[in-house]
């Protein structure tokens, strides 16, 4: 029975593809019917002609029945839509100007939203594709008083403390793992290469549930195993499967390659790529000096354990486990879901992406509004055609559907254009990410899911924004339209003006936001960073994993500095514990050690340790006192430099020179005062900074700074050569021009300014097209009025003025509303702005002036058209 029904439907579906023969069948069938009826009448005694005529009359219009038969087929809808699509395509081809502008407008809207959605998708929605059940993974995020150690946005704990956590909270986790990002030096035939990777606990991959692309991950009994990242495996090992089991030399020690990670696993932070993983206990057992390091902790909840229960147990453990540093107290620990975005960056990040999405959506809204306006004008212009179609019996529903199909087709074509635009835009954005002190690998280009969403969004927008124009057209009064010649179908200019005013309001919001971000970038670019990065190359060298200790460290640095100074073209060389703009993230409380100053004058300061050459080379301004000298060495009195912020916090309104600070069981005398600078990011608050002389505060890792007349590339090559001559196992990490580091810290501002500023510009242009559209339409519609006014002696300027005034008034109304909206909305952008107030009067003023100017310019063409109308032409149009 079911089979019969299916067969019936299939037959009709087939009929869809051989329509001509189906139509012929119908004609044959009805012909036959009439013939039979005619025979019947003839038998009843009528003449043949009369019988035929009556049979025809009795049957009625054959086409009406055909339509009835067609209607009773379920495939009818498909047939109709197919014919609507053909009709729409014909209409769009016939009017290329309209079609191109509309498609471009939609493409801008869809392109902007698709690009941003694509970023959201790859950053927020599919951040960790290789990790199984990431929703069961949680970061343990500890908070302490007195100090904190942050690791690329994660709270870190000491390795020993991690081990204690693992024991104390074992009932909660199916596994608790630890990891930290580190730079490795991989020895190659041509010297060592720096590689960004991670040290992890042995259970790391098991806890994450990642499967190796090749070989296996750590297991018991491995000695010094290492897992290669997929990218490193293909770039440096030629994707050779034979690499498994071979030995590589890493940080002066041999490691065995046991596996290759899958291509879609780069670590737990979106975009920050680890190229290599090694187990932390082995790494430290291999002879690297120092105690195991700070790590970020991540765990997988045991099945059956829910978050509130787990949080309580972890919180209790955090307070109970003795801290490794007795001078800090642990306030507690929270569990944060693992999302690919570092815990501490998450709120800001989500807010930023949310803001991007909102602005992109505004662009789409304005674009769609524009197209709706264009469709309305177009259907008005086609009033006579529509009226005729209504008159010959096309149903209004059918007509609405047909118009909807037209707008949907338009939006889909625009949607495809938008997708192309989005690919281009995400490509530009990805390329604009500057070199980080970590390997950046983020693919924000749209995937199939985003593309499907973009097309669906285009289709829905097409239907939503096509509906109003379609309904209006279909409501047209046939007689009226035919009489008047099709100028007036369902169009009231006032409604359209309100529409354009609304577009202006949204555009103002975009222009103001974009303007604020552009101003913010300008302010950041103009910021005095407190040093001069021009012509300086920086590179970090880390001796610690290579077993250097005591005197060997000092000897290494002086040897290196000497060699680099001897390189032809090098002007100046300096050494600092921390490179600028990736500056110290660790700090501590310091206090004045003079009598009467203790306790009440404490402040948190960051430290750096620099040699005399560095201060000179970076052109750090010394406001009072002196800079470090070569004579400040291990045996001379302990001295420091402080910056203005630190001085004013410890000794407000007093001369800091000659005062002392107690730190690390020593009194340090302030010998110089430096101007405030920017130490980690351009946007940071004034930071208290303290400089130690390198000779009195040496460290096993330092950043070499070199000013030279050589290009950065050649200099870095030469530095590699000099380094390899001293120790071929040590790689040069993050070698880059210092200006690139400043550029990196400007990246958020630059990114926001370009993208949101771009959206603002798009909004401006679209609003301009919108006001042009409504005025041009108005002038066209009122041709007769303008012609008569012209004939009655109105001056050209009067006519032009009237049209321009209309445009500017509409724009002014929209702009006023938009400014109010912007005043409410920009405060959400406030946290991302640098030294620009969210209500910056200049930005608001310029935006308003710009909008009005744009409206006036857009009005000029229609205005000139209005003034050029000849009276005779006006009479002819109707």
């Amino acid at each position: 029975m079911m089979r019969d029904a299916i067969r019936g439907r299939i037959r009709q579906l087939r009929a869809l593809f051989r329509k001509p023969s189906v139509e012929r069948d119908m004609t044959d069938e009805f012909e036959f019917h009439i013939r039979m009826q005619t025979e019947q009448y003839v038998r009843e005694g009528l003449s043949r002609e009369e019988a035929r005529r009556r049979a025809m009359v009795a049957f009625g219009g054959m086409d009406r029945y055909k339509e009835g038969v067609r209607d009773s087929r379920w495939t009818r809808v498909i047939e109709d839509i197919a014919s609507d699509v053909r009709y729409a395509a014909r209409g769009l081809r016939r009017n290329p100007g309209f079609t191109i502008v509309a498609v471009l407008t939609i493409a801008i809207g869809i392109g902007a939203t698709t690009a941003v959605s694509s970023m959201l998708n790859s950053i927020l929605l599919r951040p960790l594709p290789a990790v199984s059940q990431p929703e069961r993974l949680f970061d343990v995020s500890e908070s302490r008083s007195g100090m904190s150690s942050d690791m690329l946005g994660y709270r870190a704990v000491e390795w020993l403390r991690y081990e204690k956590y693992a024991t104390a909270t074992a009932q909660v986790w199916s596994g608790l793992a630890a990891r930290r990002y580190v730079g490795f030096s991989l020895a190659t035939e041509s010297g060592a290469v720096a590689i960004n990777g991670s040290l992890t606990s042995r259970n790391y991959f098991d806890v994450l549930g990642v499967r190796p692309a090749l070989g296996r991950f750590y297991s018991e009994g491995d000695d010094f195993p290492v897992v290669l990242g997929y990218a490193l495996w293909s770039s440096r090992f030629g994707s050779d499967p034979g690499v498994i089991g071979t030995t590589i030399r890493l940080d002066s020690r041999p490691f065995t390659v046991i596996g290759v990670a899958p291509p879609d696993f780069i670590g737990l932070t979106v975009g920050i790529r680890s190229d290599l993983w090694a187990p932390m206990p082995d790494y430290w057992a291999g002879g690297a000096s120092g105690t195991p390091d700070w790590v970020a902790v991540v765990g997988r909840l045991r099945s059956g354990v829910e978050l509130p229960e787990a949080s309580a147990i972890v919180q209790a453990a955090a307070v109970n486990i003795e801290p490794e540093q007795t001078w800090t107290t642990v306030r507690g620990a929270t569990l944060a879901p693992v999302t690919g975005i570092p815990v501490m960056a998450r709120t800001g990040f989500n807010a930023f992406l949310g803001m991007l999405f909102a602005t992109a959506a505004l662009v789409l809204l304005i674009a769609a509004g524009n197209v709706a306006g264009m469709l309305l004008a177009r259907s008005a212009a086609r009033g006579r055609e529509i009226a005729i179609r209504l008159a010959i019996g096309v149903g209004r529903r059918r007509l609405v559907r047909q118009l909807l199909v037209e707008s949907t087709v338009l939006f889909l074509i625009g949607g495809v254009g938008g997708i192309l635009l989005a690919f281009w835009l995400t490509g530009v954005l990805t390329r604009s990410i500057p070199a980080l002190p970590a390997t950046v690998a983020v693919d924000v280009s749209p995937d199939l899911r985003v593309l499907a969403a973009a097309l669906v969004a285009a289709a829905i927008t097409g239907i939503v924004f096509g509906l109003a124009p379609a309904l209006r057209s279909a409501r047209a009064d046939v007689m009226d339209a035919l009489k008047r010649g099709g100028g007036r179908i369902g169009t009231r200019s006032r409604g359209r003006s309100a529409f354009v005013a609304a577009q202006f309001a949204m555009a103002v919001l975009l222009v103001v936001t974009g303007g604020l971000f552009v101003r913010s970038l300008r302010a950041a670019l103009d910021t005095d960073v407190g040093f001069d990065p021009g012509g300086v190359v920086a590179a970090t060298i880390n001796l610690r994993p290579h077993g250097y200790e005591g005197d060997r460290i000092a000897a290494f640095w002086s040897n290196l500095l000497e060699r680099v100074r001897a390189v032809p073209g090098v002007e100046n060389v300096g050494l600092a514990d921390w490179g600028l703009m990736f500056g110290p993230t660790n700090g501590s409380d310091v206090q004045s050690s003079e009598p009467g100053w203790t306790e009440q004058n404490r402040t948190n300061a960051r430290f750096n340790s620099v040699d005399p050459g560095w201060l000179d080379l970076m052109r750090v301004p010394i406001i009072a006192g002196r800079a470090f000298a070569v004579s400040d060495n291990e045996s001379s009195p302990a001295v420091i430099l402080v910056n203005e912020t630190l001085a004013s916090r410890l000794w407000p309104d007093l001369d800091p020179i000659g005062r002392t600070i107690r730190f690390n069981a020593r009194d340090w005398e302030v010998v110089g005062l430096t101007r405030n600078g920017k130490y980690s990011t351009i946007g940071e608050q004034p930071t208290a900074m303290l400089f130690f002389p390198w000779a009195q505060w040496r460290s096993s890792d330092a950043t070499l700074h070199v000013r030279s007349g050589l290009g950065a590339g050649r200099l870095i090559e030469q530095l590699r050569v000099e380094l390899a001559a001293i120790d071929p196992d040590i790689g040069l990490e993050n070698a880059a021009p210092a200006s690139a580091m400043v550029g990196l810290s400007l990246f958020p501002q630059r990114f926001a300014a370009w993208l949101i500023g771009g959206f603002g510009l798009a909004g401006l242009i679209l609003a301009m097209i919108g006001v042009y559209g409504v005025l041009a339409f108005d002038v066209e519609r009122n041709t007769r009025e303008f012609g008569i006014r012209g004939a009655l002696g109105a001056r050209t300027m009067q006519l032009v003025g009237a049209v321009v005034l209309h445009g500017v008034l509409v724009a002014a109304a929209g702009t006023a509303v938009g400014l109010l909206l912007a005043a409410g909305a920009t405060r959400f952008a406030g946290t991302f702005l640098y030294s620009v107030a969210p209500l910056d009067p200049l930005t608001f003023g310029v935006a308003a002036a710009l909008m009005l100017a744009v409206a006036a310019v857009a009005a000029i063409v229609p205005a000139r058209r209005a003034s050029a109308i000849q009276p005779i032409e006006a009479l002819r149009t109707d």
Partner: protein
Amino acid sequence: MRTPTGQATTDVLRGTLELLILRTLSLEPMHGWSITQRIQQLSSDALQVGQGSLYPALQRLEQKGWLGSDWELTEQNRRVRVYRMTRSGRAALKEETASWRGYVAAVESILGAT
């Protein structure tokens, strides 16, 4: 409506047309025109099937799978579409007939009650 011979007839009620078609075709396969003739004849000319509803109805029934159709040639070598009943059509006829009878009985009992 009047036939050429002047008799008064009633148009077939919309809902019952399909039932009548099924009933007619349960006797033997036939083409559209003979279906109208047969209905007229069986109802002693009391019922007249409008062509405007016949063919769409046939289409609907075919879509439900209750009818099948084949093209045949007449003696004059004309193509003619002949409708025949399917097995599910036969079952449907049974059901529809029962429900129609139930309906008529219900209406009748109300009319008779006054």
